[in-house]
C-alpha cells in the first residue's frame, strides 16, 4: 500500500466548482492578518470530537499546541503530524514569516473542519459561510487552507 495508490483511488471523486466564483484581492501580504483553516479534522482535547459527516467547525487557539488529529479516513499518514504539527498546521512557520515582516500578523483564531465529506452542500451553504464570518470579524485578511 502507499500514497500513489491511495491518491489514484480518489481520481473519480466529484468536484463541485462554484458557478460564480469570487476572487478577492487582499491588501499587501505584509499588512495582512493570516489564519489557518484545515480540513484535517483538528481539535483541542477539550472540544467535542467530530461525528460522522460532521459539517461543523472547531475554532483553534494558535497559542495552544495541544492539537488532536481526528480524521476519519484510514488513508492518510498521521505520523508526520504526531512528530510535528507544522506539517499540517504550520503555526510556527507563520510566526516566522510575521517576525520577518513578510506577513502582517498571525491571527489569534484559526479553524478546522472535518475532511472526507460525502456531500458538501452543508459546508457550502451553512458552516463555511458561518466560519468565514467569524474569521472576517476577527480581522483575518488571508486564509491558508491545508488538507491532509
Amino acid at each position: 500500500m502507499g500514497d500513489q495508490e491511495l491518491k489514484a483511488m480518489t481520481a473519480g471523486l466529484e468536484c463541485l466548482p462554484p458557478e460564480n466564483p469570487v476572487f478577492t484581492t487582499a491588501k499587501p501580504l505584509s499588512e495582512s492578518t493570516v489564519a489557518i483553516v484545515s480540513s484535517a479534522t483538528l481539535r483541542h482535547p477539550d472540544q467535542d470530537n467530530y461525528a460522522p459527516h460532521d459539517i461543523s467547525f472547531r475554532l483553534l487557539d494558535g497559542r495552544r499546541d495541544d492539537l488532536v488529529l481526528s480524521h476519519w479516513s484510514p488513508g492518510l499518514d498521521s505520523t508526520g503530524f504526531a512528530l510535528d504539527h507544522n506539517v499540517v498546521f504550520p503555526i510556527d512557520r507563520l510566526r516566522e514569516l510575521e517576525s520577518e515582516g513578510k506577513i502582517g500578523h498571525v491571527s489569534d483564531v484559526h479553524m478546522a473542519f472535518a475532511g472526507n465529506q460525502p456531500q458538501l452542500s452543508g459546508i457550502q451553504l451553512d458552516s463555511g459561510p458561518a466560519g468565514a464570518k467569524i474569521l472576517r470579524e476577527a480581522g483575518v485578511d488571508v486564509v491558508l487552507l491545508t488538507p491532509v
Partner: protein
Amino acid sequence: MSTLAHAFEAAGMATVTLGSIRAQLEGTAAPRGLYCNFPLGRPLGRPNDAEFQHHVLWQALSMVDRVSEQTIEDFPDTIIDDGETALACPLPPRHDPDAHPAVDEALGIRGAYDRAVSDWGNAVGTGRTVDADQIPEAVGAFARCAEGTHWKKAGIPGIPARVAQDIRGYYEMAAIALADHTPEAYEATRWFFHKTLAGKAILDSREAIKNAGETRDKWHFLAPFDL
C-alpha cells in the same frame, strides 16, 4: 478544501489552498492553489524540517501578492512514497503465554507507546473511542472476529473503524518510539498492517465482515483502501 476557499473569498478574504492531488485543485477551481506532490497527511512536506516547510509556506502565501486571477502553481520539489518501505521495529517476545498472541503483543509495546506520548503528546494515538488501557481488549476483540466470531459478538468496543484507528494509532505511536529515525510517510502504517498481529487481525476482520454480507460502511474504513 476549495469548497471552503470559495466561501472565504465570498466573505472578503483572499485564500491560498495547499493541495496534494492536483486534479482536486483543478476540479474545484481553487482561487489560488499550490499543488505539492507530497504524501497525504503531510501537506507541508517534511516533519521537523522547518526550512522546507518555510519554503512551501512562502511559495503559497506569496501568491496573494503575485497573482491577480485564479491560478494553480506547482511546488518544484516532490516527495514520493515508494509504497514498500516499512519500519523495522522490534516486537517484544511473548510475555504472557496464556494471553492471545495479539493481545500479548499489544501489552508488550505499551512502554514504547507511553514513551512516545510523553515525548510528542497524544495527537494521533488513542482516544477516538478507546484509550490506551483498553487497546489490548480491543485487539482481542478483532482477533476473535478474525478467527470466526461474528463481529457483533466479538466485543469490539465501539464503531469498528474508529476502534481500529485507535489501535493503529497506538501501534504507530509505539513505532515512532521504537524507530531509529523520523519515519517517512506510511512506513509505520505498513509496519502495522504487514508486520504486527494486531494489524493482521484488523485486515482479517475486514474480510470477515465483508464476507458476512455487511454493508460497505461497516468494513471499508477499517484499513487503507488499497490494502
